[in-house]
């Protein structure tokens, strides 16, 4: 699998939160050759299962990457213009942005601005509220009313851009980059042995409700969860502790949301694979689906692996392809290590003298 091509394909596929059918189909097709069994559930979560080689009952490792993306939603059709609300989109990047409206047809549009020639000094200093912005499709009011309804989605129009040094920028790398890492990890597992069952999940709903991850936990009841998501790439404005170098390797979460033994184990693996890595301090929670996987329906020990990404929640999320490859290698190696003894090792130990009877 060409990581770059797959990332481009998935990045450019539509999949806003709540309407993930399209991206789910695309991922389903990519998962099929890599799994023993693939399904799409009623919420459009895509679930692939690779059976392990260990004896029954085998541990079940879920590797989850959400596939939904941030979006705009049409809130009113106002003559030849569309009003919208941004959902998780950074509103500062919207002005001057090309978009696609997912109405009865796919319609291109532009979010424009007043010409600076006519702005007051005050206007020039301040970003307008998103409610003051409109999408301009170039269609007249009647055609627009035929094609677009309140509640339709709009996405930024952005094809992937290749920068120097195998770095790329594009939309929805949060979290399609992790989906690609998951696919690449499964590809590595084709050549390797893994004792546990690997449940490869591209889930819905992360950017809004967490409904995907919770449903998965309830239905699949995995013993162990790896959540793959993007995290902050180092750039001007990121605090030192929370901005991770591009091409600096996987970012392993540490904190109460993460099982301590899993953090250790991932770090050991990075060392033995000679992959550089960084630790991400998560003093409260991880801000990922791991928030749910740790507790939902009884929950499971969870770890988070991040891909350093600049400009998160913008149309130009930027990352180094090398990091995607390294996350894939790490995940594959981890799956190779999960067996019954490993699960046993995750139990918190009591002092010798107070063992339960």
């Amino acid at each position, binding site marked *: 699998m060409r990581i770059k091509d797959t990332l481009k394909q998935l990045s450019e596929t539509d999949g806003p939160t*709540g309407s993930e059918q399209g991206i789910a189909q695309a991922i389903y097709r990519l998962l099929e050759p890599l799994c023993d069994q693939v399904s799409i559930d009623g919420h459009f979560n895509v679930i692939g299962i690779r059976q392990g080689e260990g004896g029954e009952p085998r541990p079940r490792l879920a590797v989850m990457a959400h596939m939904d993306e941030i979006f705009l939603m049409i*809130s009113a059709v106002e003559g030849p213009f569309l009003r919208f609300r941004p959902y998780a989109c950074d509103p500062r990047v919207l002005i001057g942005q090309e978009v696609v409206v997912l109405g009865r047809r796919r319609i291109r549009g532009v979010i424009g601005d007043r010409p600076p020639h006519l702005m007051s000094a005050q206007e020039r200093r301040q970003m307008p509220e998103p409610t003051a912005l409109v999408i301009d499709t170039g269609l007249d009011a009647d055609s627009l009313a035929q094609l677009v309804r*309140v*509640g339709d989605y709009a996405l930024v129009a952005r094809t992937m851009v290749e920068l120097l040094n195998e770095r790329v920028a594009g939309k929805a790398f949060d979290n399609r980059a992790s989906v690609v890492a998951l696919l690449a990890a499964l590809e590595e597992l084709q050549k390797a042995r893994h004792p546990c069952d690997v449940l490869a999940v591209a889930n819905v709903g992360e950017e809004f409700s967490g409904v995907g991850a919770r449903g998965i936990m309830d239905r699949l009841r995995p013993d162990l969860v790896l959540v793959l998501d993007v995290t902050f790439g180092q750039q001007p404005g990121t605090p030192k502790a929370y901005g991770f170098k591009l091409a600096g390797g996987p970012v392993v979460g540490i904190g109460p949301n993460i099982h301590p033994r899993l953090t250790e184990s991932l770090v050991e693996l990075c060392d033995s694979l000679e992959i550089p890595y960084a630790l991400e301090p998560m003093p409260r929670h991880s801000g990922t689906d791991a928030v749910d996987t740790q507790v939902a329906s009884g929950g499971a020990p969870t770890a988070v692996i991040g891909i350093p990404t600049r400009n998160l929640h913008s149309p130009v999320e930027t990352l180094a392809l090398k990091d995607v490859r390294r996350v894939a290698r790490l995940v594959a190696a981890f799956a190779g290590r999960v067996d019954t003894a490993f699960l046993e090792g995750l139990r918190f130990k009591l002092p010798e003298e107070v063992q339960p009877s």
Partner: protein
Amino acid sequence: MKELLQPLCDAFGPAGFEDEVRELIREWIEPHCDEVRIDTMGNLVGLRRGNGKGRRIMLAAHMDEIGLIITQVEDSGLLRFSQIGVVPLKTLLGMRVRFANGTLGVISLEGGAEVEILSRELPDMGKWFVDVGAREREGLPVGVGDVATLFRPFADLGERVVAGGLDDRAGCAVLVETLRRLESSPHDIYFAFTVQEEVGSRGATTAAYMIEPDIGIAVDVTSTGDTPRPKQPMAVRLGAGPAIKVADRGLISHPRVREALVQAAEAEQIPYQLEVLPLGSTDAQAMQRARGGVLAGAVSVPCRYIHTPGEMIDMHDLEGAVRLLTAFLARPWPA
């Protein structure tokens, strides 16, 4: 439907204290249900069985409303209070309140209402109190922990009505009327009248866990964008038909639920609107997240001035909501 709506609005029911509303509804729905239960949280659930060929559908309307709760009694007999749910302070000054036992009182402010009314700033919660007309602490008819609602009588304006608590007694009325009118349906339908929505959909969360529905639909009020210069523009208008929710702050309706509702409305030629609500949420978000996830959506009754003592709805919208739900429930779930 005013004969349902007025007693519902007059009933007392801040979140956690929904008994009066529940008793009222229970009497109405018992004759139309195969089974009626009240769970530990106080949710009232009536089940209408289908023919075994349909789905499990949960409809939820919440019985509770926002209110006040007494936190402290002063020696003077004045009562300090806190909010239950989101009670906008702007609506309080000079308002009358009613407690569960019928005690009435008036809300005022430190610093003298006459002075404060001229001030531009809104004092914080700690500066407000209720005066029930007592001379002193001794012999007060109410005390710490007693709850009250704003006293806001039902006003019939003809096609439209004004009342407090239309959020969500309007939804309750829709559910009761739908149950009465529904002739046959393939589905097992759980009519859930939930508690404690205003403090975070706590009733709907447990009810949905127990019912484990395939499909969950909340019936609640939604804001409108048809009053002058709304800060949060919205395409919903009063009187233009019930709203089929697309999204709010807590829910993106499942596209299949939304489409099924739209199809039902279009098949029966019921005027409807699509709703993207910039603020707030409903029991649907709690249902959506229950267990392994529920296909969730909502039907909303457009309502102006939500969470004020003068909420307004249009009776045509209410009627439309009943027709829409009845049509939806009578149809098989699209394959």
